[in-house]
């Protein structure tokens, strides 16, 4: 099968990775790209391309059949809320198997080893463990199902990128926003393993997965192959701002001390409820109820119309992405997920991808930052 002659079906096409996949498929000259679109209002980026926007929902197999059409190549970047990852992936696999799909690229994540991967997880054969994090655990469970379908005859390839960055990535845009707001700190002296995966390197790996028979049924870490630390990554973004903000280091003792006030059954429950209400997953569930969808939209519009200072104050009060206001005399302490992410010590090996796929990262870190800077300027972040 030459994938360049095939209709390519992309799930998660309205997202950052899927959007870039559509662009690259078009640049590669595939005859037709079918994009699964759950929320049509999110399709502005890919609607610029000659892509067929196919309405559908990973939770609704019938819609996937219609959306897949005659495609024989599936690139599965789709996600949805954490609790629906497994079912959505299984639905897509079942429809693909029935339709005789000839290649199924599953975009997994290195986070199947948790947000702070344990030592020994450098290579793909390290056993996957449950971590308690819904995203990590569900992505790990989805991998198992993908491999099961591989054994049933669906030609599958699993890719495990890590910190996928590049134009449109929230890793870049949120970091810029947080740097401006003073909501960034170095954890572990900024020495933690960042494991960057430039989005085009990931797409290169997808293409190699489509072309390489030896990849079938295999799992590959995909990173940029450089030992980029969080200090490097954050520092490179801070340097884009003028003046470059000073990023403070926070010690584990300071982090522990800031968490100390969370003890107590009542306060713990209140804060846990607030965290639930703020979670993306919960908000997505609320949007399915028409009246709350309308109310939330009005509320967000109202918040969006506030002057930046008031907006930040309100967000800080409700803990939305800025747990502590960055007053001049108050040290910013990152949230638990950020701390865990920056505490990573494992650099994933791409030896297997190099050997089996012939993968070699095309975009090195400095080149990636150059491209990201160009894009950030165009996108009015700089």
């Amino acid at each position, binding site marked *: 099968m030459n994938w360049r002659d095939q209709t390519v079906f992309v799930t998660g096409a309205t997202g950052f990775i899927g959007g870039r996949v559509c662009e690259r498929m078009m640049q590669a000259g595939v005859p037709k790209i079918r994009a699964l679109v759950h929320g049509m209002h999110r399709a*502005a980026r890919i*609607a610029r391309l000659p892509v067929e*926007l196919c309405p559908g929902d990973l939770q609704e197999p019938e819609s996937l059949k219609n959306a897949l059409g005659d495609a024989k190549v599936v690139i599965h970047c789709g996600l949805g809320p954490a609790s629906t990852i497994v079912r959505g992936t299984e639905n897509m696999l079942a429809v693909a198997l029935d339709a005789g799909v000839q290649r199924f690229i599953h975009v997994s994540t290195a986070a199947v080893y948790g947000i702070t991967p344990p030592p020994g997880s450098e290579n793909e054969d390290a056993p996957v463990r449950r971590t308690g994090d819904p995203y990590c655990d569900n992505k790990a469970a989805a991998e198992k199902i993908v491999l099961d379908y591989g054994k049933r005859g669906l030609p599958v390839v699993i890719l495990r990128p890590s910190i996928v960055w590049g134009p449109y990535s929230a890793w870049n845009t949120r970091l810029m926003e947080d740097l401006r707001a003073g909501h960034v700190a170095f954890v572990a002296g900024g020495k933690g393993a960042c494991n960057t995966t430039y989005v085009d390197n990931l797409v*290169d790996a997808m293409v190699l997965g489509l072309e390489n028979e030896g990849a079938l049924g295999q799992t590959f870490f995909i990173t940029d192959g450089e030992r980029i630390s969080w200090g490097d990554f954050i520092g490179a973004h801070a340097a884009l701002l003028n003046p470059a903000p000073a990023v403070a280091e926070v010690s584990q003792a300071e982090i522990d001390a800031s968490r100390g006030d969370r003890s107590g059954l009542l306060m713990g429950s209140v804060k846990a409820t607030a965290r639930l209400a703020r979670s993306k997953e919960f908000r997505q569930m609320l949007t399915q109820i028409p009246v709350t969808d309308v109310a939330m939209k009005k509320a967000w519009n109202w918040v969006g119309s506030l002057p930046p200072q008031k907006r930040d104050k309100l967000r800080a009060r409700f803990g939305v992405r800025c747990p502590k206001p960055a007053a001049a005399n108050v040290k910013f302490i990152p949230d638990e997920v950020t701390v865990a992410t920056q505490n990573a010590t494992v650099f994933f090996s791409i030896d297997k991808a190099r050997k089996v796929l*012939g993968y070699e990262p095309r975009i090195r870190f400095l080149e990636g930052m150059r491209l990201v800077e160009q894009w950030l300027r165009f*996108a009015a972040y700089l």
Partner: protein
Amino acid sequence: MTRPIRLAILGCGAITRNEHVPSVIAHPGVELVALVDAEPSRAQTIIQNRGLTSKAIADFREVFGRVDAVINALPNHIHASSNQECLRAGLHILCEKPLAITSTDAKACADLAEEKGLVLAVGMNRRFTASHPLLKLVMNEGLLGTIQSSDFQYGGAFDWRSATGFYFDRAKAGGGVLVDFGVHMLDSVLDSFGPITAFDYQDDDWGSGVEANLLLDVKHSGRYGDVPGHLRISRTFALRNSLLVQGSVATAEISAENTEVVVIHRKIAGAAVSQTLQFENFPGTTSYGRQLDDFISSIVTHSKPEVDGRQAIQTLELVESCYAHKRRIPEPWAELTPARSGAGA
């Protein structure tokens, strides 16, 4: 007392649900007879949610003879044909922008309305924000000095929950962000600074898609002489979201956050100061409400609406010229050099 204008709204998507229905309900001179949508459940949902006695109808032709006027909020590609059918049936029309997806079709609508002596108003609600006439007043009275340039930026992540998703289909929408939101901005600057006599247009359509970003440099030649202007619109990125008008002594700003005021920025003895201007008495509460009131008044008094078909033609001709002479916005981050390995996609 004259009887209310009997009205039907064609198309029950987001704009009808969020703006037109509330405006119509609040207007004392209008009776909402029917809501029309090819998917009648959409009309029925609005009727139930609002507790209306209006009828839910699937085919707009069924309102002929039962109403005096319609608000046409159907998808763009059927504006022209439905407008002409309604005009032939003797109905006044307030048509959502764009009036049609080609200037030729828009002209056919405008000609027919004039021939029939009917009101054909075009939904440019931003004309009915208080800041629009206030800015014109500020410029006319010389508060800015000589008008030197304008810079209009509007952008944010697209979040319009269209019922049909036609926005992303070039054949149905007529284009992308230029024909969608851009016509509002073009209408504003044309009305404020006069005709555009030169332009340079770029967008990010990769070919047979619809653009999400555009950059437009223009030269107006109007009552303020030659005034250069820059417009930037985005469906993907948050922008400054304001119109800045640079004058020789001060700069005026209309912000999307508050379209009822004009802020004047200037320097006094080297110190930057700003002053917020607003009308003490400006009728109505929303731009859609004022737009509806203008439409109804035009019907009752047999006068021209604020934005008529002729003005819409001028805007659409400019849109067509932009598309005909467009250049692609450079996206160097998206154009990769060939891969070192075999992954040359």
